[in-house]
């Protein structure tokens, strides 16, 4: 069997060699390329999640630029004279009129608008699942804490970018979102009224906010996003990607395919797949049909108004909150707005940003980690993550409690009351359940390593007993399982004389030692098969 082809190229073609030499003479690009052309990228399906977000961002820039050619970010009133019959003669803002124009009078305008909106949803969704992957595999650990924080900033900025973006068409639905934004901003103690007057150029809605959101949406926030995404990529490149445990992989190497040509081509294809998905959604799945909503007026709203999905958790929090408001000394503290607007987002974003440092403080682990954890092997982290996911998910779900109520014929208020309890009980339950599942999976791994896997071969013993023969696991699977690392624990035990170690004498130190023990102990050690005399499950036997 021939496996090697004759090389088809014997020297660099002139067309490439010429410009390459030109650039090298001026930039010294050669030494960079020498080090990086064959940079190795490890492979795992979950490493592609972040790329969805990256490519969506590129598509957002492309489609967004197209939209700016026609969009007019003005709130001056005009009478609609365009081709859409139902709105002809209606007074509306220039922003809304120009969005209608993009939709009905520019060829490909509707496609680009819908692709832009879908890409925005995919951008945030991609970032979110990528972040979950990084969290659950512990890929944020040293040396990647800074990149993790950049990621948290990116996610926060993406929410702001989305909010400023979907307010721009100035239709009735986006106006509802803007009104809620104003209601939240004005509730802030001390600065709220000033902040809203500065944002809206006076009283709500004013005539400035669309133009201001426009410059934030197309210049300031994307500029920062672009800078942070570049930094994110450069750090990933410099620090090299983490890899899953497996054969030949360890903490001091990277195993995979070279950037040139394989990874480059694969990444290009993946960009095109993302582009395909967004183009297909923009073609076949209608999104934000603003012409049906009509122009914005603060006097009207339609029932069942929903924000884009990534704002859903804030919407849910606002809906669940009881009517708490404090008046004192002539001032008002609208807790029923402040708490849901700030606390869930604060918990999630601050928690995310601090987690690497809290974990490091608890475990005392200052080593570099380049092998990704399997989520089961750090059960407390995984459980905390799942508790946060359930907290977010419940808030998100109950942001649509009116839809749930209408669809399932449940009393509307019951969904709210259920939610008020569920946001506390749900995460606790998720913690316990996830923890049990992690431990079960760890035991399963330990069993596979110590007793092997069922081979499907039934053997009759001389004494008439039937047993199923167990065989050792496949080598790649075994190597994958062997990637499990013991979680370090801080010394906290008192010595023989009853004196605790130096770091564990203060109250904080004691708490830290207790946490560390809890966090690190929950670990089922792997024992390689043989020599232990355990009876295999199903009264099998160890086979070598």
């Amino acid at each position, binding site marked *: 069997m021939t496996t090697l082809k004759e090389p088809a190229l014997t020297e660099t073609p002139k067309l490439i060699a010429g410009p390459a030499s030109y650039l090298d003479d001026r930039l010294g690009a*050669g030494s960079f390329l020498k080090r*990086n052309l064959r940079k190795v990228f490890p492979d795992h399906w979950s490493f592609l999640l972040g790329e969805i977000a990256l490519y969506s961002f590129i598509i957002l820039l492309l489609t967004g630029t197209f939209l700016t050619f026609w969009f007019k970010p003005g709130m001056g009133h005009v009478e609609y004279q365009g081709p859409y019959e139902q709105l002809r003669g209606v007074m509306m803002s220039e922003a809304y009129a120009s969005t209608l124009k993009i939709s009905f009078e520019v060829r490909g305008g509707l496609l680009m608008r819908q692709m832009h909106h879908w890409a925005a949803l995919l951008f945030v969704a991609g970032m979110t699942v990528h972040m979950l992957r990084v969290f659950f595999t512990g890929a944020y650990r040293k040396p990647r804490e800074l990149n993790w924080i950049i990621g948290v900033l990116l996610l926060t900025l993406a929410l702001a970018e989305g909010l400023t973006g979907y307010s721009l068409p100035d239709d009735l639905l986006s106006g509802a979102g803007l009104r809620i934004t104003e209601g939240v901003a004005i509730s802030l103690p001390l600065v709220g009224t000033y902040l809203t007057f500065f944002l809206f150029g006076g009283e709500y809605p004013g005539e400035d906010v669309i133009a201001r959101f426009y410059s934030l949406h197309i210049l300031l926030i994307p500029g920062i996003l672009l800078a942070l995404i570049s930094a994110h990529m450069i750090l990933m490149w410099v620090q090299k990607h983490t890899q899953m445990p497996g054969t030949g992989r360890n903490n001091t190497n990277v195993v995979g395919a070279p950037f040139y040509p394989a990874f480059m*081509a694969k990444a290009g294809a993946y960009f095109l797949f993302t582009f395909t998905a967004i183009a297909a959604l923009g*073609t076949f799945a209608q999104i934000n049909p603003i012409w049906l909503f009509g122009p914005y007026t603060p006097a*009207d709203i339609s029932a069942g108004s929903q924000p884009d999905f990534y704002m859903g958790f804030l919407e849910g929090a606002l809906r669940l909150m009881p*009517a708490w*408001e404090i008046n004192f000394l002539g001032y008002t503290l609208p807790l029923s707005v402040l708490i849901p607007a700030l606390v869930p987002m604060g918990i999630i974003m601050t928690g995310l940003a601090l987690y690497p440092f809290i974990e490091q403080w608890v475990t005392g682990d200052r080593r570099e980690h380049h092998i990704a954890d399997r989520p089961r092997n750090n059960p407390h982290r995984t459980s905390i993550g799942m508790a946060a996911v359930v907290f977010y998910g419940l808030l998100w779900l109950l942001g649509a409690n009116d839809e749930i109520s209408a669809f399932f014929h449940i009393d509307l208020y019951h969904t709210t009351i259920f939610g008020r309890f569920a946001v506390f009980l749900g995460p606790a339950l998720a913690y316990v359940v996830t923890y049990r599942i992690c431990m079960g999976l760890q035991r399963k791994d330990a069993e596979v390593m110590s007793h092997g896997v069922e081979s499907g071969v039934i053997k009759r013993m001389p004494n008439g007993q039937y047993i199923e023969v167990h065989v050792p696991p496949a080598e790649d699977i075994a190597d994958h399982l062997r990637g499990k690392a013991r979680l370090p624990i801080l010394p906290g035990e008192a010595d023989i004389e009853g004196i605790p170690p130096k770091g564990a004498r203060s109250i904080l130190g004691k708490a830290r030692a207790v946490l560390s023990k809890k966090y690190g102990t929950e670990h089922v050690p792997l024992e390689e098969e043989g020599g232990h005399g355990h009876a295999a499950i199903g009264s099998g036997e160890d086979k070598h």
Partner: protein
Amino acid sequence: MTSNEHSSHEEDARVPRRVIGTPAAGTAVLGDSPPQPPVEDPAVVYPDLAAARRAERLVALLFLVTFLSGVAFIASYVIFQVGTVDSTAASNLALGTSLTLALLSLAAGIVLWVRRIMPKYTLVQERHPMVSAPDTQEYVADTFVAGANESGFVRHKLLRRTLLLAAAPLGLAPLILLKDLGPLPGTSLRHTVWKKGLRLTVEGTGAPIRAADFNSPGGILSVVPQGYEHDLNALAKATLILIKFRSDQLKAGTNQNWTHDGIVAYSKICTHVGCPAALYEQTTHHILCPCHQSTFDATDGAKVIFGPAARPLPQLPIGVDSEGYLIAEADFDVPVGPSFWERGDAEAEAREAREKAS
């Protein structure tokens, strides 16, 4: 940029030294030395030649589909015009489908190319700790200290302090510049455009409302001040809902003096975050805000019965003019809409003021 296994920089003789005046040909950065004969590298496994040939045909087919779809995209742009809802839908479908197909087959082709024609790689590269070598650290630390001393920044106190002083106002300047983003709130949030004698008109038609004609027991009407139909700033605070009750239906929470013949006017702007509280349930007389489901009892001064709103919808005093049209008797006596810091317990203050007046 990064360091990996090829980290010995001394070997980076990228380009052979060129004699001035001689052509640069043959000094390509990508190298022109005859390629090494391929060696069997276990880390780079080529696919079977025949399989690669089969894959090549498939890839070529996919690239051809991309070509045709791309042509179809351009043709669609020319053929399908937009304007009506139907023609726009057709154009969108034609453009979108051809674009999707072009991208999909290109992506699929490249993936097949990578997976079936390129070799399988299991290359290994060493990682090095991110931390720089101790001698590098030492050099940088020494250089930093030396440079700081050379600059005189440490020794010359006056220079250092005046520089910091100089920076402070410049740092504030951009913030100061933002002041003209908007006027200060003042008391504007406490007033609406409603004043004595201003007629109530139906939102949408602008028609004034004759009290005798407004008889839709159980119905709800969205109302705006006459002359402000297109003033969004005014509407954001002044929009009303108008409901007619039998007089025995109204409870203590509603100020009966502010009603006319069982007609009550409440602010439509929700006291939670300002959505229009636009839903009304006839049988229970509940006003519901569709945004966050704050529910108000219309018979009882629009007091809150469920949801996150903390205060009732303010009631507007109404009456009729000489022609029998509904008019406002005064502005709201409390701020409408969402709560804000300076608002305080406006309801209690208004109550006290009323008691003092009566």
